[in-house]
C-alpha cells in the first residue's frame, strides 16, 4: 500500500504530465487498488469515454496494467486496471535514465528518448520518429543503423518487449476476494503481493522480453530497397522511408511494442550510487581497485549484487594511476577487505552484495536526519537503539552512551514524541529497588514514516516549482531571479529523488 503522500506525489506527477482528468483516474486507482472501468466511472463521476481515454494514456505510458479477473461465480471475466506506482515515480528520473545511456551507448540515446517520451512504441514507430527528428543538413539515419542501435539497447536489457496486455489473474488465489479489492485496502503485505502478482503475471519471460529484432537478410533488404533514400557507399542499403513495404515483410517484428526497462535503469543507478557512496570511506590506495571492480562489471545474476571477473578488474586497475605496481595478491586482498567475496559460480570472479551498502546508507540517512533535527546526543542514542537487536533499558542507554541522565531522558522523550522510537513499561521484579523500567527501541514503522516524509518533501518541491512557474506566467518583474529559484528547486528535486530511490527502489 502506497502511503498518503506517495499517492499525492504520483497523482501530481501525472497531473503535470497528462492533465487533471488522467491524474484523477490515476489517483482513484492508487487509492482504491485495481478497479474495473465501470467502478472508476462510478467513483469519479466522469463519462466512460473520459475514463477510457485516461486509462489508455496511462497504459501507453506504462503507469497502468490491465488484467482480467473472474466476475461472480461463473466463467465471466471483467477487466481491472491497476496503477503501477513505481513506474509513475520513474517519470521523475527520465533524465537520469538518459544519462545512463549517454555514458554507455550514446548512439542509442535518441531511441531511448523516444520510448521515454511515448511510453511504448513499435520499432517501426521509432524509425519514423528518428527520421522525423533529423535536422536539416544532417545525414538521415539508415533503418539498418537504427535497428543496430536499437538491438544494442535490447541486448543490454535497457529496452524490453511490453508485458501481456491483459493477463488473467485470479485474486482468490491470493486469498483476497474481488469485493475487498474494491474497498480501501487495509493490509500492506497482501496488497503489495497482489500488485506484484499482477505485474509478474503480465511480464514476459526474460528470453521473450529481450529477444532482439532479427537482422533482415541481404536479399530481403535489397528486395525492399527504394532508390530514393538509399545511402551511397553503405554496405547494406536499407530504406529510410520505405517503412510500409518493410512492415509487410517483417510484420511480426514491427507489431511488437517496446518500452524502457526501468528495472535495468534502476539497477544501474543503484550500482552507481553504491560505488559513489563508499568512495569517501575508502582508504588510501583502495579507490582504484574499487573503481576498477565496478568498471569491470559486465553481467549480473540479480539486482542485489555486482560480479566482476578478476582479469577485468586487473586490466582496469593497470590503467589507473599507481595501478601498474599492484600485485594480484594485493588486489585480491583489498577486494576482500572491501567485502567483495569470490563468486560461488566462478572462482575467478568477485561478487559484491549491494544490499548491505543500501541498508547501511538508509540508516546513515535516518541517523543523519536525527542528528540534524535533535542534536549529537540524539544521534548517539538513536544509533545505539539501531545497533541493538533488542529493546534497551533507560539506564543501560545512560551507561553505554555516557551521557547525562537528564539529557538522555529529554532526548528519549523527544524521539518518542515524534514517533522515532517506541517505549514499553516493564514491571520490575522484587529486590531491584525500582517498581518499573522503561525499555526503548526504534519504531517498526519508522522507515515507512521516513519514506512518507520523503514523498511529502518531493510533493512540496513540485508544488513550489509549479508555484514559481505560475509567478513567471503572471509576468513578475523579477523574472531572472524567479528562473534562478526554479532551477534551484528542480536541482533539489533531482537530488531528493536519489533519496526516494534509495528508500523505495534500491
Amino acid at each position: 500500500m502506497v502511503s498518503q503522500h506517495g499517492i499525492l506525489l504520483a497523482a501530481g506527477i501525472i497531473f503535470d504530465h497528462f492533465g487533471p482528468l488522467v491524474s484523477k483516474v490515476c489517483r482513484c486507482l492508487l487509492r482504491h487498488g485495481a478497479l474495473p472501468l465501470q467502478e472508476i466511472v462510478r467513483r469519479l463521476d466522469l463519462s466512460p469515454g473520459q475514463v477510457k481515454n485516461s486509462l489508455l494514456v496511462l497504459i501507453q505510458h506504462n503507469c497502468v496494467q490491465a488484467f482480467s479477473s473472474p466476475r461472480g461465480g461463473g466463467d465471466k471475466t471483467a477487466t481491472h486496471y491497476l496503477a503501477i506506482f513505481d513506474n509513475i515515480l520513474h517519470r521523475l528520473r527520465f533524465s537520469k535514465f538518459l544519462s545512463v545511456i549517454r555514458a554507455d551507448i550514446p548512439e542509442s540515446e535518441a531511441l531511448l528518448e523516444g520510448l521515454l517520451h511515448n511510453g511504448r512504441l513499435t520499432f517501426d514507430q521509432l524509425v519514423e520518429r528518428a527520421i522525423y527528428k533529423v535536422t536539416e543538413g544532417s545525414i538521415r539515419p539508415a533503418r539498418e543503423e537504427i535497428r543496430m542501435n536499437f538491438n544494442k539497447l535490447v541486448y543490454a536489457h535497457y529496452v524490453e518487449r511490453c508485458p501481456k496486455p491483459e493477463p488473467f489473474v485470479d485474486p482468490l488465489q491470493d486469498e483476497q476476494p474481488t469485493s475487498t479489492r474494491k474497498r480501501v485496502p487495509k493490509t500492506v503485505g497482501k496488497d503489495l503481493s497482489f500488485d506484484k502478482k499482477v505485474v509478474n503475471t503480465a511480464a514476459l519471460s526474460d528470453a521473450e522480453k529481450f529477444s532482439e529484432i532479427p537482422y533482415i537478410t541481404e536479399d530481403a533488404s535489397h528486395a525492399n530497397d527504394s532508390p530514393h533514400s538509399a545511402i551511397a557507399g553503405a554496405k547494406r542499403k536499407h530504406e529510410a522511408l520505405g517503412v510500409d513495404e518493410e512492415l509487410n515483410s517483417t510484420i511480426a517484428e514491427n507489431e511488437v511494442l517496446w518500452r524502457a526497462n526501468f528495472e535495468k535503469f534502476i539497477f544501474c543507478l543503484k550500482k552507481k550510487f553504491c560505488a559513489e557512496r563508499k568512495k569517501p570511506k575508502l582508504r588510501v590506495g583502495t579507490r582504484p581497485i574499487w573503481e576498477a571492480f565496478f568498471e569491470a562489471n559486465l553481467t549480473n545474476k540479480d539486482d542485489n549484487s555486482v560480479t566482476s571477473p578478476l582479469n577485468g578488474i586487473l586490466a582496469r586497475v593497470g590503467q589507473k594511476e599507481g595501478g601498474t605496481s599492484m600485485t594480484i595478491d594485493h588486489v585480491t586482498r583489498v577486494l576482500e577487505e572491501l567485502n567483495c567475496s569470490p563468486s560461488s559460480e566462478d572462482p575467478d570472479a568477485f561478487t559484491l552484495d549491494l544490499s548491505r551498502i543500501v541498508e547501511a546508507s538508509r540508516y546513515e540517512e535516518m541517523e543523519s536526519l536525527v542528528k540534524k533535527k535533535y542534536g549529537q546526543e540524539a544521534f548517539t542514542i538513536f544509533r545505539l537503539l539501531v545497533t541493538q537487536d533488542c529493546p534497551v533499558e533507560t539506564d543501560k542507554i545512560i551507561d553505554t552512551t555516557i551521557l547525562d541522565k537528564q539529557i538522555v531522558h529529554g532526548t528519549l522523550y523527544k524521539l518518542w514524541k515524534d514517533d522515532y522510537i517506541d517505549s514499553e513499561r516493564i514491571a520490575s521484579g522484587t529486590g531491584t529497588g525500582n517498581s518499573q523500567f522503561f525499555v526503548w527501541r526504534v519504531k517498526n514503522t519508522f522507515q515507512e514514516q521516513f519514506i512518507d516524509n520523503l514523498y511529502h518533501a518531493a510533493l512540496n518541491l513540485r508544488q513550489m516549482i509549479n508555484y514559481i512557474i505560475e509567478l513567471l506566467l503572471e509576468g513578475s518583474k523579477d523574472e531572472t531571479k524567479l528562473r534562478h529559484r526554479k532551477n534551484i528547486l528542480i536541482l533539489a528535486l533531482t537530488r531528493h529523488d536519489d533519496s526516494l530511490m534509495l528508500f523505495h527502489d534500491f
Partner: protein
Amino acid sequence: MPPRKRPPQPTNASETPPEVKTRISPPSKLCAAAPPAPGPAPSVSILPANILGSFPPPEREIYKLVFSGGDKGMTQTDIRIKMGMTASTLTKHMRALVNTKGVLKVVTNVHKRGEKIYMDARVDPSPEITGGTWYRNGQLDSEAVASVRLRCLDQVEKLGVATADSILSGISRDYPSVGYSIEQIRDILRTMALDMVLEEVRSTGVGEFSDLRAGRVCYRRGGAPQGGMMEGIPCGVCPRIDECSPEGVISPSTCVYYKKWLQMDF
C-alpha cells in the same frame, strides 16, 4: 528486559585517576548476567558485638537492617516500614547513627536525586547508585569524559588502527599520572564508535591489520560523515511537516522556511 546488574566493587581505590571515580566493568558484560542480591561488600563485616552492644536496641536493629542492604543501602521509607517506627522517631535514631556515632552514611542516588540512601559508613556505594565510573557527586563528569575521548582519539591517530589495549598503553605512556582501567577505555571507545568518531572493525591479520591478530576488535578513525540527502531542503528538518498540506494553512507556497531558503524576499 532484566534489570541492570550492579557493577562490581572497585578493587583499588588508591589507583583511581583524579578525574574519575571507580573502575567498573563494561556495561555490556554487566547486563549479560543476572543481578546480584544486595549485600555488604565482602571486605566489610558487621560491627563487632561489643560496639553494637553499646547502641540502644532500636539503633542496633536499624544498623543491622541497613548493613543487610549492602552497597545498595536502604531508603528511609524502607527502614521505617521494616522497623514499624514513626517518621519522627526514626529520624532521631538515624541522626544519631549518622552524625553522632558515624556508623552510617547518607548517599545520594544518581537516578533519584531527591532520595537519600543510608548505608554502612565503611561500604563504598554501588555504581548503580553513584552513577558509575564517570560520575562525581551524582553528576556526570563531562570534562573527564571529554578528556579521555581526546586522548583516545590522539592514540588512534598516532597508531592508525589500534586495539583498546594499545590505546590504553599509549595513554599510560604519554600521561603517566592518569590511571585509566581497560574497562574505562573500552566504554569510551564504544561511545566514540557510536558517535562515528571512530570505526570499530575486526582485524583480518593482513594489510593495515598485519600487526594485529585476526579477529581482534580494533578501532580506526571514522570516515567522512555520510548521509544528509534529506537535510538539503527545508522539508527535511521541518518541525511542522505534519501540519503541511498542499491546500492547507501551512503549505509550500506559504512556507516561511522555503521563502528564507530561496531568499524570496524580492
